[in-house]
C-alpha cells in the first residue's frame, strides 16, 4: 500500500514543500530511505521504529521504501520523524485517516513523545503563502506558532496523540492566536540609560546614532562602561513592529535560539566574541547554510567589543552587508540570502595600553604603536561608521553620585520623533534612515548653506580630515538637525557632527 504525507524542508529562510511517500511490499525485511536525506534524517529510522513500537502500534516487518520528494533537494534536520512515522502507519494500514492537507513537523523520542524542532515559524509562513493552513507540530513549539493568523495548528505531545487526533478518538483544540503586543509588554530589557552614570558625550552620540541609523564606534579606556553603553542602544530604539518581529523570529527560529515566548519582540543585541570566524559572522556552513551573527542581529544591534582584535577578514566581510543590509551566502550547493539590517556598534581601546587620553593614567605607547593598533581597522570599514566618539574614564564621584540620569524611555521618544521625520522625507525611496543615504540623496536632502560649506571647508583644513569623512559628517549633521526639528542643516549641526571623529583626528 502507498501513502503520501506532507512536510516541509527549509532552504535558508524559505520553506519548500516535501512529500513523504511510503510504499510497503512483501519481500526481504528492509528499510530504504531515498531522496537526499542527511545523517539526521537517515538516523530517524531507529527513532521512528521505537516510537511506533512504544506507542502501542506495529512497525511493519516488510520491505519498506520511503521517498522524500522532490528528490533533488537535500533534506536536513530531525523534523521528518513525525511525517515518516505517520506515513509508515498509513502505508501499513494502521491509520486510515484523511491527512491530505496537513503539514507534519516534529522529532520523535524513543517513547513516542514529540520533541521541539527548529524553524517552525519560517516553515509556517512559507506554507501559508503556498496555501497550506493546517499543521501538526510538537507541543513545545506551540508559542512560536501562535502568532500567525489564518492557520489551524495542533500542538501535540506524542505520536499516540497524533494518531488518536487523526482518527478522531481524541479531540484537541487548535493553538490559540496570541497578540504580539502582549508578548512585547511581557518582555523588557535588562539595561537602561539611567543606569549609566556620566558619559554625557557618548550618550548624546548614541542618541544620534539610533535616530539616524548610523553605526557607531566607542573608543575609551578599559572598564569605562563601553559595553554597558552599547547594551543600552536597543532600549532607545523604536519598538519593533509585528512584521519586523516576525522577520527576526524567523532567523532565530531557524537557528533554534527562540526563547519560551516563541517570538522575538525585543531588538536583538548580539555580541560575537573577537575570535569569531568570518563564517560565524556572515553565515555559511558545510552542509546546511546557517544564518550568521549579523543576520541574528537583524533589526537590532551587532556589538563588536575590542574591534581591532577581530581578524581582518572577518571585519572586511562586514562591509558589503553594512551597505546592502542583506547578505547572500553562496556555496557550491546554492546561494541563500539572509537579511542583515543592523546598527553596528564597535568598541575599542584608544591605544594598546588603553590609557591614551586618560586624565589620571599615563599612556606608555609610542605613536607608532598607536598607529599600528588603529590601522588594524581599514579605511573602507571606518567609512561605514558614521560616529566615532570617546568614552570618558569614570571617576569615583560619578559612580556614587545620586544625580538622576535620563531614562531610556525619554530618549526613545526623541528618537521616534526624528525617525518619523525621516520616514516622511524618504517616502518613495527605498530607505528609512539618514545613514542609508547615498551621494544622490545627500545632494537632494542635505543642501548646505554657504556658511555651513565654509565651516566644513575650515574643519577639513585644520582637523586634517580625509575627503571621505565629508559625506559622513553631512549625514550625521542631517540627523542632528532632525533631532532638533530643523528643516535645514545649520552651522551648529555641522560643527557637532564634525566633533564625532575622534578616531580619525586625535592628535598624535
Amino acid at each position, binding site marked *: 500500500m502507498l501513502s503520501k504525507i506532507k512536510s516541509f524542508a527549509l532552504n535558508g529562510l524559505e520553506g519548500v514543500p516535501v512529500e513523504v511517500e511510503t510504499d510497503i511490499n512483501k519481500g526481504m525485511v528492509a528499510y530504504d530511505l531515498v531522496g537526499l536525506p542527511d545523517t539526521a534524517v537517515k538516523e530517524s529510522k531507529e527513532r521512528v521504529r521505537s516510537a511506533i513500537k512504544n506507542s502501542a502500534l506495529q512497525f511493519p516487518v516488510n520491505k519498506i521504501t520511503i521517498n522524500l520528494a522532490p528528490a533533488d533537494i537535500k533534506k536536513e534536520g530531525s523534523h521528518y520523524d513525525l511525517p515518516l512515522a505517520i506515513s509508515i502507519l498509513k502505508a501499513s494500514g494502521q491509520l486510515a485517516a484523511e491527512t491530505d492537507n496537513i503539514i507534519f513537523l516534529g522529532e520523535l523520542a524513543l517513547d513516542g513523545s514529540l520533541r521541539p524542532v527548529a524553524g517552525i515559524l519560517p516553515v509556517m509562513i512559507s506554507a501559508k503563502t503556498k496555501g497550506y493552513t493546517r499543521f501538526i507540530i510538537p507541543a513545545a513549539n506551540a508559542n512560536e506558532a501562535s502568532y500567525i493568523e489564518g492557520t489551524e495548528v495542533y500542538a501535540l505531545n506524542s505520536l499516540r496523540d497524533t494518531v488518536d487526533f487523526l482518527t478522531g478518538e481524541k479531540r484537541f483544540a487548535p493553538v490559540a492566536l496570541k497578540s504580539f503586543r502582549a508578548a512585547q509588554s511581557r518582555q523588557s530589557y535588562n539595561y537602561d540609560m539611567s543606569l549609566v552614570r*556620566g558619559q*554625557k*558625550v557618548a550618550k*548624546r552620540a548614541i542618541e544620534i546614532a539610533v535616530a539616524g541609523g548610523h553605526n557607531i564606534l566607542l573608543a*575609551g*579606556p578599559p572598564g569605562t562602561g563601553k559595553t554597558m553603553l552599547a547594551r543600552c542602544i536597543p532600549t532607545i530604539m523604536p519598538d519593533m513592529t509585528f512584521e519586523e518581529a516576525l522577520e527576526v523570529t524567523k532567523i532565530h527560529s531557524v537557528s533554534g535560539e527562540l526563547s519560551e515566548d516563541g517570538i522575538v519582540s525585543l531588538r536583538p543585541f548580539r555580541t560575537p566574541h573577537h575570535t569569531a570566524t568570518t563564517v560565524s559572522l556572515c553565515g555559511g556552513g558545510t552542509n546546511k547554510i546557517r544564518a550568521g551573527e549579523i543576520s541574528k542581529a537583524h533589526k537590532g544591534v551587532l556589538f563588536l567589543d575590542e574591534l581591532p582584535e577581530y581578524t581582518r577578514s572577518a571585519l572586511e566581510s562586514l562591509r558589503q552587508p553594512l551597505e546592502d543590509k542583506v547578505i547572500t551566502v553562496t556555496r557550491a550547493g546554492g546561494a541563500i540570502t539572509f537579511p542583515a539590517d543592523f546598527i553596528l556598534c564597535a568598541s575599542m581601546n*584608544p591605544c594598546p595600553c588603553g590609557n*591614551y*587620553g*586618560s*586624565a589620571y593614567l*599615563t*599612556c606608555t605607547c*609610542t*605613536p*607608532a604603536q598607536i*598607529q599600528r593598533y588603529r590601522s588594524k581597522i581599514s579605511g573602507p570599514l571606518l567609512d561605514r561608521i558614521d560616529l566615532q566618539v*570617546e*568614552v*570618558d*574614564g569614570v571617576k569615583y564621584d560619578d559612580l556614587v553620585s545620586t544625580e538622576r540620569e535620563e531614562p531610556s524611555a525619554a530618549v526613545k521618544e526623541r528618537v521616534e520623533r526624528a525617525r518619523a521625520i525621516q520616514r516622511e522625507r524618504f517616502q518613495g525611496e527605498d530607505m528609512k534612515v539618514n545613514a542609508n543615504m547615498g551621494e544622490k540623496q545627500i545632494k537632494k536632502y542635505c543642501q548646505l548653506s554657504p556658511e555651513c560649506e565654509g*565651516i566644513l571647508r*575650515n*574643519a577639513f583644513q*585644520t*582637523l586634517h580630515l580625509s575627503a571621505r569623512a565629508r559625506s559622513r559628517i553631512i549625514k550625521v549633521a542631517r540627523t542632528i538637525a532632525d533631532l532638533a526639528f530643523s528643516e535645514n542643516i545649520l*552651522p*551648529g*549641526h555641522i*560643527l*557637532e557632527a*564634525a*566633533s564625532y571623529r*575622534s578616531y580619525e583626528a*586625535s*592628535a*598624535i
Partner: protein
Amino acid sequence: MYTDDERDLITLAYLDGLSYHAKHAMLSRLESSKPDFDKYESILIKTLPYGVYNKMRAQYYDADFRKEIFAGLERRGITCVTYFSEGYPESLKEIDTPPIVLFCKGDISLLKTRCFSIVGSRRTPPKTVADCKKISGEIATRFTVVTGIAEGADTAALEGALSKGKAISVLAYGFDYAYPSVNAQLITRAANEGLIISEYPPETQPKAFYFPVRNRIIAGLSEGTLVVSAAKRSGALITADIAADCNRDVFAFPHSVGLTAGEGCNSLIKKGAYLAENILDIFGVYGLDFNTPQKKPLTDDERELYEAVCAAGEAFLPDLAEKLGKQIWQLIPVISSLEIKNLVVRLGGNRYSAVK
C-alpha cells in the same frame, strides 16, 4: 659638476666600514680632502674586522665604484654639499666632527639661512604638540626651522613650519628609507617644500645609534634650539647639550610638575636654559619683534567657553557644561568650532586645553 675635492669626500662618505671618527682622522681633521690611508693603516687594520680595511681602501681607489656612486646620486636627484663646498653652512663647521658630506634633497640654499631648531620627544602630549605646531609656525616667519622627522614633536614642528615658512629636516639614515614609515608622505613634503639632509649615503638603513649622532647636525646648524618636550633621558636632551657646548642658545617649554614628558625640559631650565613660554621669549633674545596676528572674531558662546577652558587649564567637557549651566549638546558645536579655529586642542577622553 663636483670638484675633485668634493668627489673624494663623497666617495669617502660611501665607505660604510669606517667610522666618522676614523674618516676625520684620515682627513687630518679636515685639513685635506685626501684620506691618508697609509698613516692609519697599522691601527685600523687591527681595530676593524678582518679584511674590511683593505676592502675600503680598494673601493676608494676603484673607478667603477666611484662611477656608480655619482650615477646613483644623479638618478635619485640628490645634491651633495661637502665640507669643502661653497654651500656648506659655516655654523656647522664649529661643532666637533662636522659631517664631511651632506646629502641633500630640496632647496639647498636654506643651509645658508638663519636656522633655529625645534626638538622634542616622540611621546609628546597632545597639548604640547599643538603648542609646538603653533610656535614652530611663528619661528618660521624669521628662521628656517630645523628638526628631525620622528612622530610627535618633530612632526608637529615640521608641519607648523611648512605652513608658514621653510624647514630643514635632518634624517639619521639614507634617503632610500622612510622611518617612521607613517611619515613617508611628510618626508616627501619636506623635500618638496623645504629641504631634507642626511650625512649618510642613500642606501644606509636606519640604526638606533645614528640618531644621537645625527642630533649634532641639528644643533650645529641652528642659532638656537627649542626643546618642547623631553623625558629624563631623551634624545632631545642630547641635542640641547650639543647646542650648549657649541655656544648656541637653548630654550625649553616649561612643564607642570610630575609630567614625564616634561622632566627633561624643566631640568634644562634649572641648568640655565631660556624658559620659552611664547614666541616673544625666543625672539627677544635675538632682538626680533613679533606682531601677534589679529584674533579671530568669536561669538559670545565661543568666548564664554574659551575663557572657561583657559581658566580650567585642562577641561573636561561635561564639567564645563555643568559650570556654564548648559546641556552637553549645546556645548559640543561650540567646542568643535573653537577646535576648528585652532584655539583649543582635544586631549582625548573629551578633555580640552586652550592653545596659547
